[in-house]
């Protein structure tokens, strides 16, 4: 049990189309038993659940995009290899392309975490809600955390509410989620550390202006590769969830791939999410942990790309977020005199550890509502919208966008938390520049 198998043959988030005939029955009988005997009501409820799941899955895809655009583009944005807007446009297009490139969706969603028979439309809905809220909360405080872990956490919480704690396979949680989360940053970190050393060693006699320029191109290329790889894995996830629900509701033939509009909608959602930038996380990853120069950026990009590709093709699926973060820290260790903020690195690790239980709590709470038929689903959707608006509103108090992403290394949540020295420092700098230009003018 709990074997970590090849993600090519069975990716972590998978949909079992073979098991869908029974899932289809479950969706109908489940909703009917809750809402009486009329089959018409049963179908109507199912349709509302289906629409809700599609909507919420696309919202999740959007949060997945803006949460993870930092994984590929934080480095190039921080070093100036790519302008912030250019970086997110490239990442968005490549994520969309990636999402449309690969459409093998015939898989199971649970990845062995629990019995596939426990997956119903309401469990998927609750799991997605848990993942979305967790993604938004971590985005608000600017912490990178794995979107797949958030989705698993949400599903686990929903399944526990429905079927009890014993339905979760603990050894799979350890071997498929906790262990990879420890290993991914280590492997990518070591790779980036050694690559950074090589980069500085090989180019030690090269004028730094020229090597900077060269590594900028290298960084842009590797970042693009990471964005494309991200699209193929995460864009597919949402398509899989939507297809599962469509098949379960009898709106699509068992054993068929995703519909063209599902591919298009999922690709658009992740692309738009990526384009919107997730600047808070980009600031933390690009500026908050390590001060990086272009050779380090190229090294961490290469390490991220190589580790993701190797893990996807050799049978040990690793989270893009964990890999990218480990690589950036590694590139900081690899250059002598680079500033590393270990306190921030520790906060990230805590966020990773909290992702599963945190999303599980939200997912569990959401499952309590999602199980209560149409009214519950409607209340859940309204609550989700309210939480989204609330978190967005709080984020506006300390906006991070493409203009100021590189201005600070901190992501602040409340105005009260903003240190006066930062604001003063900015103004002082402006004054100083002003004075210098005045002096020049006078001279």
């Amino acid at each position, binding site marked *: *049990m*709990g*074997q*970590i*198998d*090849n993600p090519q043959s069975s990716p972590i988030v998978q949909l079992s189309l073979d098991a869908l005939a029974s899932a289809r029955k479950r969706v109908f009988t489940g909703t009917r038993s809750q809402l009486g005997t009329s089959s018409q009501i049963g179908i109507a409820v199912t349709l509302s659940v289906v629409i809700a799941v599609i909507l919420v899955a696309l919202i999740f895809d959007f949060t997945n995009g803006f949460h993870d655009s930092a994984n590929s583009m934080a480095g190039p944005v921080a070093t100036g290899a790519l302008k912030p807007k250019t970086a997110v446009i490239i990442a968005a297009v490549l994520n969309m392309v*990636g999402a449309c*490139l*690969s459409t*093998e969706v015939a898989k199971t969603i649970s990845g062995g975490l629990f019995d596939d028979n426990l997956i119903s439309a309401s469990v998927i809905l609750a799991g997605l809600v848990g993942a979305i809220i967790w993604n938004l909360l971590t985005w608000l405080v600017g912490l990178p955390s794995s979107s797949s872990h958030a989705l698993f956490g949400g599903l686990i919480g929903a399944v526990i509410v429905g079927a009890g704690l014993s339905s979760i396979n*603990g*050894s799979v949680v*350890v*071997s498929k989620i906790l*262990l990879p989360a420890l*290993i991914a940053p280590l*492997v*990518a970190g*070591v*790779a*980036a550390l*050694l*690559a950074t050393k*090589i*980069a500085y*060693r*090989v*180019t030690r*006699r*090269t*004028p730094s202006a*020229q*090597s900077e320029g*060269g*590594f900028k191109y*290298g960084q842009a*290329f*590797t970042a693009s*590769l990471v964005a*494309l*790889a991200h699209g*193929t894995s995460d864009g597919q996830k949402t398509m899989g969830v939507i297809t599962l629900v469509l098949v379960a509701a009898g709106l699509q033939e068992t054993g068929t791939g995703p519909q063209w509009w599902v591919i298009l909608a999922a690709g658009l959602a992740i692309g738009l999410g990526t384009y919107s930038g997730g600047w808070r996380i980009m600031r933390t990853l690009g500026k908050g942990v390590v001060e990086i120069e272009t*050779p380090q950026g*190229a*090294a961490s990009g*290469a*390490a991220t*790309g*190589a*580790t993701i*590709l*190797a*893990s*996807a*093709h*050799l*049978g*040990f699926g*690793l989270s893009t977020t964990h890999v990218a973060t480990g690589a950036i820290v590694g590139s900081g260790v690899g250059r002598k005199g680079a500033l590393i903020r270990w306190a921030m690195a520790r906060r990230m690790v805590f966020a990773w550890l909290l992702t599963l239980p945190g999303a599980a709590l939200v997912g569990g709470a959401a499952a309590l509502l999602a199980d209560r038929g149409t009214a519950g689903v409607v209340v859940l959707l309204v609550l989700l919208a309210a939480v989204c608006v609330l978190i967005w509103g709080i984020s506006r108090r300390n906006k991070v966008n493409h203009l100021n992403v590189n201005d600070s290394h901190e992501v602040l949540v409340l105005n009260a938390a903003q240190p006066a020295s930062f604001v003063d420092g900015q103004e002082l700098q402006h004054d100083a520049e002003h004075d210098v230009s005045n002096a020049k003018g006078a001279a």
Partner: protein
Amino acid sequence: MNIHVDWQALLIVAVVSIVGTLIFMALLSAGIRYVSLAGVRANQRQSSVVARVAGFSFLGLAGLFVLFGIYLIIPFFH
């Protein structure tokens, strides 16, 4: 709990990731070094052909590495 981890797969992933990263970075760095050297030599009116050819060969190999990565991602090729 009976935890089974495929340590061999993990080791292979770790080694391939690290070696792959290092080869790419070595090629990229060498390319940048020699292209830059060619520029310096040209400025000094020395022969820059060898350095330029070497530099762009390294960069080309690094580019092939990226293309191989793209090849791995696209399921159409498999």
